[in-house]
């Protein structure tokens, strides 16, 4: 195993990186309690007066709701298309298999502004009104690959013999899927879906081009940053979202760990 010094050095490194990751986030949380509406260091005083107006701001509520809908729908689209693609690519060797992977990776590999511009003029050309569904299409492009990657990585780890055994025991395709395949990939679907949702929920660049008049939450936040008059309200919202998401993120992590079926290498 690694020497004692290596272990200490690595632990220190991890602590430093965590500080790097979390100092800005602690600042966000701290300034949710800022007494002044213009943010500056050091913080002039603490108050909870921003919580109520932030939570009751109808613009924020609509934006949050739209973001939740867009996130849920893009994740759903991504789960269906992403896992279908993963199964197709995993099971069947065919010419152009690599091309499919390449195609799905493109939206995340190409800059978001290009996806945004391209979809914007494409929707305009087809006279499609911008709104929830154009946002969903824009987000789904890069969410699919997240699910795809998670599922295909899982499928590679699952021995094909499991499926064959199920069929040999007389189960039909659906039963095999329901009792064997789905349980093995379910945690991959959860972690992929959660990441896809997170990406959609926080997306700004593609959304700028594919949203209509309604704001998603990140676009509302950008509006507040532009205005510069009620920034603590943004901090309150981000603070609350973090507080709420810790639970599902931690839960998903536990679920992923519990599925012992996959730990074939240990």
């Amino acid at each position, binding site marked *: 195993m690694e020497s004692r010094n290596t272990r200490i050095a690595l632990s220190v490194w991890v602590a430093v990186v965590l500080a790097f990751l979390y100092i800005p*986030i602690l600042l966000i949380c701290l300034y949710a309690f800022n007494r002044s509406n213009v943010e500056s260091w050091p913080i002039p005083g603490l108050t909870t007066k921003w919580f109520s107006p932030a939570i009751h701001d109808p613009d924020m509520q609509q934006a949050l709701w739209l973001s939740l809908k867009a996130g849920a729908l893009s994740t759903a689209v991504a789960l269906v298309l992403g896992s279908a693609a993963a199964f197709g690519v995993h099971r069947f060797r065919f010419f152009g298999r690599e091309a499919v992977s390449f195609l799905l990776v493109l939206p995340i590999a190409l*800059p978001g502004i290009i996806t945004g511009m391209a*979809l914007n*003029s494409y929707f305009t050309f087809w006279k499609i009104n911008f709104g929830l569904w154009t946002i969903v299409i824009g987000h789904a492009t890069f969410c699919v690959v997240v699910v795809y990657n998670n599922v295909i990585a899982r499928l*590679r780890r699952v021995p094909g013999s499991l499926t064959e055994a199920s069929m040999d025991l007389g189960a039909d395709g659906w039963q095999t899927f329901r009792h064997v395949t789905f349980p093995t990939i379910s945690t991959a679907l959860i972690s992929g879906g959660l990441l896809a949702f997170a990406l959609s929920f926080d997306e700004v660049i593609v959304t700028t081009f594919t949203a209509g008049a309604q704001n998603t939450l990140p676009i509302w936040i950008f509006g507040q940053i532009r205005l510069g008059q009620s920034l603590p309200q943004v901090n309150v919202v981000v603070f609350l979202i973090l507080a709420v998401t810790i639970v599902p993120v*931690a839960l998903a992590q536990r679920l992923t760990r519990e599925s012992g079926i996959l730990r074939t290498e240990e």
Partner: protein
Amino acid sequence: MAERLDRAQGLGGNRAGARRRLGGALWRRPRLKGASLLSPPVLAFVLVYVAALVALFVSSLWTVDSFTGLTIHSWTLDNFRELWHGAAYHTVAVRTILIAAAVTVTDAIIAFPFAYFMARLAGPRLRAVLFVLVLLPLWASYLARVYAWQLILNSDGLLNWSLGKLGLPAANLAYTNTAMWIVFSYIWLPFMILPVYAALERIPHSYIEASRDLGAKSGRTLRSVILPLALPGIVAGSIFTFSLTLGDYITPVLVGGTSSQFIGNVVYDSVNGAGNLPFGAAFAVVPVLVMGAYLLVARRLGAFEAL
């Protein structure tokens, strides 16, 4: 036996029979099944995403009338000619690519020891905690995090305040390319840690033991066994960090200085400001070519398997 299984499941024999026949047909014809699985995602991508991209790049061969703002649909290389001759555009492109590369290298250096600790030293409980801690920042708005960096880097910000308390001279980082480098490295770090961690976790312990048994010191094991096996993960992470930086235009606006334009800013200004989509599309060809080359290299290094 199969019938009994169906009954035990409480399913109607008829429906199950039909399903079974379909399932059987698909099982016997893997190509058919493969096609039926692949065609929805591939068709959706080709009809929406790829078609939109192609249309965008076709439009880069058009121009816009400066008075009416209408697109002139005649083929010309004017946009590319202007890009080729405009020194400012070269500067912007080179700056964007260099900073994206710097961010990628920085994140790889920060992420590798962290992921190594997570994958090989941390116990299951600590590993789970670290995993959540890496993922959680993705839920704190990107914009809010960039803005928080402003509070740190401002002339009278947290950083200079702390330096002052320590009796050190102030760092003049607000609105510089250095600030962009720091903030980008910060924002995209989780996207590097996760794939590197996944790659490291997959290395069988026996490989490392074998290396040790063959007399390799830990440095040698790191270089000859662990790094090569982790490389696909690092390359996979670099696709994220590199492309996300390459295409950003918001961080340069929020934390960049007077000479900090990115390709994305020029593209955004020409599309949303000047209403000149063709010119924006022409400039957008640059990051596409860069990423295309990058992906080809990444594929050779096996990054697609590790994404």
